[in-house]
């Protein structure tokens, strides 16, 4: 019995050590992505915004695709809206799409139909996990990258999603474009404090902290740039500041999983209003 107790105590110490190590490293909890409930009559701008959220969130496109930077795994999507229109005319292209929007849908539903030169056919058919209106939203966002948005809530893609899906889904979803999770109701300024942005960014002066000062960000950049900087901080990293830190911090705090769309809009609006004391 004495030997057993000694061995038991030793094993407890070993287990406790692993437990300690496991609890000493960063703790990340991943919540399911928020479902976007879209209305068929939402504006093109709303679809683009929702598509952008999907691009960096539920769609997980940004895990591999970059915008404005050559991706190591997948192609740069800057200008894809324009490219989509011409790609279907290429000799190499053997798919079913007859216009740019369809090409983008095909890329999401059957990504191996056309693989950009220099890349592997490694993209999963992510379009399959999107609802019909979510698909329209992603296509809207992609078209907005250098092209014109030609789709809306009434558009559907029977070649890949069967007949009538888009309209039917739209009819069943009367709510406006909004996150399913309720907005916190807090102002942009409050949200910025709540999410700890001010730890790294100065809002009341031009001095830099870990990140660049944001006190005049609204005078220098537009809302789209600010939104992208939050959703994909490493897309454009200001010179002299570390890449990966903001993304890691926001990932760690669960920002991307938890923040409702309205709250994100409130933060963007508030930052856009910062003009450097002017």
């Amino acid at each position, binding site marked *: 019995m004495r030997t057993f107790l000694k061995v038991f105590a030793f094993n407890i110490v070993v287990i406790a050590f692993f437990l300690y190590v496991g609890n*000493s*490293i960063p703790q990340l909890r*991943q919540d399911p992505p928020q479902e976007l409930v879209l209305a068929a009559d939402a504006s093109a701008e709303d679809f683009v915004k929702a598509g952008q959220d999907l691009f960096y969130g539920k769609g997980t496109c940004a895990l591999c695709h970059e915008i404005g930077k050559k991706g*190591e*795994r997948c192609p740069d999507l800057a200008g894809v809206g324009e490219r989509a229109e011409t790609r279907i005319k290429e000799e190499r292209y053997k798919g079913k799409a007859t216009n740019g929007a369809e090409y983008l849908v095909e890329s999401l539903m059957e990504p191996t139909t056309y693989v950009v030169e220099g890349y592997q056919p490694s993209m999963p058919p992510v379009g399959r996990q999107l609802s019909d209106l979510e698909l329209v939203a992603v296509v809207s966002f992609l078209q907005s990258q250098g092209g014109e948005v030609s789709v809306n809530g009434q558009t559907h893609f029977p070649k890949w999603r069967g007949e009538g899906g888009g309209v039917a889904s739209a009819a069943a979803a009367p709510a406006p474009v909004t996150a399913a999770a309720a907005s916190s109701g807090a102002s942009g300024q409050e949200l910025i404090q709540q999410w700890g942005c001010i730890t790294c960014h100065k809002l009341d002066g031009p001095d830099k902290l870990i990140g660049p000062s944001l006190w005049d960000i609204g005078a220098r950049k537009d809302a789209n740039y600010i939104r992208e900087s939050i959703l994909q901080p490493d897309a454009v990293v200001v010179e002299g500041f570390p*890449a*990966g830190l903001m993304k890691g911090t926001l990932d760690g705090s669960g920002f991307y999983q938890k923040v409702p769309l309205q709250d994100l809009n409130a933060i963007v609006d508030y930052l856009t209003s910062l003009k450097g004391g002017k």
Partner: protein
Amino acid sequence: MQKQVNHTQGSPGRLGMTTEGRHRTVVLVVLLSLLSLGVIADVVHAIEVPIPTKEQMVYGDFPVVGRRIAIWAIAQLHLMFGAFVVGVPLFILIIEIMGAATKSQRYDDLAHEFTRLLSVAFSTTATFGGILVFFLIGLYPTFTNFLARIFFPSMVVYVFLFFGESFSMYLYYYGWEALKGTSRRVGTMLGTAVLTLLVLYPALLLLSSVLSSESALPVSYGLAVVVFIALLAYGWLAKTTTFLHNQKWMHICFGILLNYFGLTLMMISNSWATYMTSPVGIDVNAGVFRGTTWEAMNNFTWMPVNLHRFIANIAFGGSVVAAYAAFRFLASPRDSAARAHYDWMAYIGNFIAIIGLIPLPFAGYWLGREIYGYDQQLGITMMGGIFSWLFILQAVLIGALFLGANYYLWLGMERIPGSERYRRFIPWLLGILTVCFLVWLTPHSLVASLEEARKMGGAHHPLLGVFGVMSAKNTVVNIMILSTFLSFLIYRRGNKGERLPMAQQSVASKITLVVITVIALFVLFWAQTGPLQAAGKLWIRWLETICIVAALALTFLNRGTVGQWLLFAMAAVVVVFFGAYGYFVEAIVRIGFSIVQVSSVLMVLIVGTTIDVVIFRGARVVGEIQWGKIPERAQYILFLLATSFTWLMGLMGYARSGLRTHWHVFNVVRDYSSDAFTPPLGFACWVISAIVLVFMLLVSFIFWLAHLGTQGHEQEEAMLHAATLPALEPEPATGD
């Protein structure tokens, strides 16, 4: 003497089998075969199963801990016991065959003792399996129903295979003493022929699929009949005693069948679990699974998981058996025969665990690669997303395993006369292992306070950040494997003195050495050509070939150890070169480098071991191993290894399952329950620790039970073994 007479005469009545009983058995076997055929037909029959929608999903509740932890704990405990029950029979069988081939009773008894542990663990595994099914039905009924509708034919096969495993295991255990000696009775010959046929059947099936892939099953039945008739004719006409008259062979056949059943059971249940990660046959537009059960089973990650678990089960089983022996060692009086026996048993158990541990990272690479291949999203979630930090913890665990395993070998050298010559290597090996361990557990992004992050200029440390990437990790894990292999070699040759010249070695040894080297070279070419071509470094392949041929030539010139050093140096250079070069190439090229590194190290393991076995055959023995004279702390290392293995299994179970994030079946059946989130690693560690603790306590109780019933007999056996404990090698020593 009486025992021997019985064996020679055969024992028709020993198993209580009357003529009527035999007829009943034959009828039962025929009926089961027909049923199996029906089930096989069902497995390849296309079905359509609707994917459950959010509205259809139903969940049950579990008091106090909730449904997720309840199912997690039971599934993990079932897996741990299952791993033991599937892993242990393989090395029991090898030990038994070693005993039979060398006519060594001590190996036979050791295998028998391992089987005793197995038999008591078997029922616990089945009990946890039953609880798991009940919990799945009660807590996740809709999801379970979806999977059951796809996999039902395989579940029916599973049940019958389970019977097969139970019967073969109990026949194997209880028939150990009964099935010995030889007999020329018709019944014995017939039984052995049937069992031999069953053992050969997978090979016949493979041959049939090569001959005719479309009608492999009917062809295999035809071949089986031909082989059966040939076996009977051989047994009947042979004038001398053949293997068909050998009852030990009959017993070994039961052992092989036990392994067949166990492995097939493991593979079937793996197919259900892997389908959840990499589903196939989904028609998204129609919202249904459309395909055959076989197609669902043969999903993307099935085979990598099968291989990974197969190897891990051996390592895990070996470590648990070694821990059992370590406990018995500590509980035995100092300098007793029992202590010597358990020291030897622990060494064998640990040796098996290390044999399993060394190739495990390679199997892990393959699994990781297939996960990436199936869906990049899964791969990135695993390595770059929420689970990226988990691999730091995994590095700590595997580092503990490697350091512990090496330390045990070094401590074991203290009981080997002559090993003093090699102790000078130990500080160097320790240094290399420690440095590699530290590099392996260096994360890419450091945990830092804001102040520290400001000073560093980001989350990546300017120097240590370099060690956080895969190029560095791949390099150090391969160096750790090489170092462990070196530890094993110096342990192995600890008490070996002057070697025989190669001219005096048998022709068979020399041919084996050449054949294995050629095969290793062939595998090396096959594995490396693609990645080396992509990197424009095909010349590396020729450099390796020159080194291998030179090592072989040196061996034949009685400079085998120099040849081994050459191989070590070559692999180390290849590993470090591609580790460094990986920083300068794109990811798609870099991924291929891991294959080059791994194959180079594997080649050293295979060719190096073969050279070692050949050159030390018949070497002078400096002194016999002093079994039982190992320090007591070495036994605690064995507990560390067993606990680390078990904990690691729990951790990787969390990773494999958690990888699906909020999906029951990835991208197909979504988790709509309140448990859909992926818990943080710290929480998972608490659950894993609790599971490991429960497993350890249950195993202790089970082994205590096994020990209780054999206490008197065991003492007697230990006394007998102590007188005949082997030296490091089973072959007889020659020289002065």
